[in-house]
């Protein structure tokens, strides 16, 4: 749960590269919608994060893993699908594009690898969240109540 919204709001931080100073109507529409959605997503992400903290259901290792996975996945998706397959826009214009694309997708790959490593580590640590929890059992989720009045 924590990982999910970390992905939602932190990958959005990387969305600013989507700009395309295109003057076509469809380009402008999609850009305006995306720009607005990313701002709303940012605000929503922060408040969801605050909500998780409030209910003590935030799992920091998973959240960090989600952050890097989201950043990397978005960067790579943007680099391969948007730049190359759909050719929506390029990293830079008027120069040899290859080094830029390599750097762009390489950075995405590095972020993705870091995220995957963190996710594996977080998963390995999970059963130890509580000494009495059997292995593989997830920590208590909201709404949890204590039995003592």
């Amino acid at each position, binding site marked *: 749960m924590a990982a999910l919204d970390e992905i939602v709001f932190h990958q959005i931080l990387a969305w600013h590269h989507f700009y395309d100073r295109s003057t076509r109507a469809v380009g402008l529409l999609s850009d*305006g*919608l995306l720009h607005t959605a990313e701002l709303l997503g940012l*605000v929503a992400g922060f*408040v969801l994060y*605050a909500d998780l903290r*409030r*209910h003590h259901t935030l799992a920091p290792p998973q959240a960090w893993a989600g952050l890097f996975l989201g950043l990397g996945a978005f960067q790579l998706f943007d680099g391969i699908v948007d730049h190359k397959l759909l050719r929506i826009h390029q990293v830079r214009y008027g120069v040899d594009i290859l080094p830029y694309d390599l750097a762009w997708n390489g950075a995405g790959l590095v972020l993705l690898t870091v995220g995957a490593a963190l996710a594996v580590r977080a998963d390995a640590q999970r059963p130890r969240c509580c000494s009495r929890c059997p292995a593989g059992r997830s920590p208590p989720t909201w*709404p*949890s109540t204590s039995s003592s009045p």
Partner: protein
Amino acid sequence: MIAPLLLVLARPLTLAQRALPPQSARRVLLALAHSRPVTWLVFPPLAALLDIGGLWLLYRTPLLAATHHQPLIHAAVQVHVVLAGLLFTFAICQLDPLRHRWNLAWRGLTLLAAGAGHAILAKTLYVARPPATTYSAVDLHTGAQLMYYGGDLVEIALAAVLAVQWYLATGRAHARLQRRQRRPPLTADSPPHTSRDF
């Protein structure tokens, strides 16, 4: 425009109802706020259409050029822009007591659409001046950028208002749930989710 947001955050309707004399004036205001036309006007998509649609009309038709020559049109446009901005912000935030409150999805999606409409208009102004006007390219670029980034700030502020409302509402719901679950006396065969021992 930041002015409508600041005005709406002051909860003008609530404030007026507290400040006005209790009898006639307050009753009239209440009847007005609960009347059918007002209920329809604060339907978020309609309010957004009046606000953002008005801006599109102003900048994408010869209306802006007309305001430069005819003082009456100029005044009407100014009044409309402020009032429509107020209405839109009022409909999105819904801080004052109204007959019908639209839920978060309606208001959030409306904010998304309105924000996109505003940003797109600002970008088109960057490349093409309003019809029948003679602004210099530098002025046009400065104005469009101000509109674009200023709009972003207001949009973030509006989103923050919605987010805080959601946060407080879920907090209250959670507290209510916990109170309710704590109330019945614990017995040996109490439901399993209350006897979980973590």
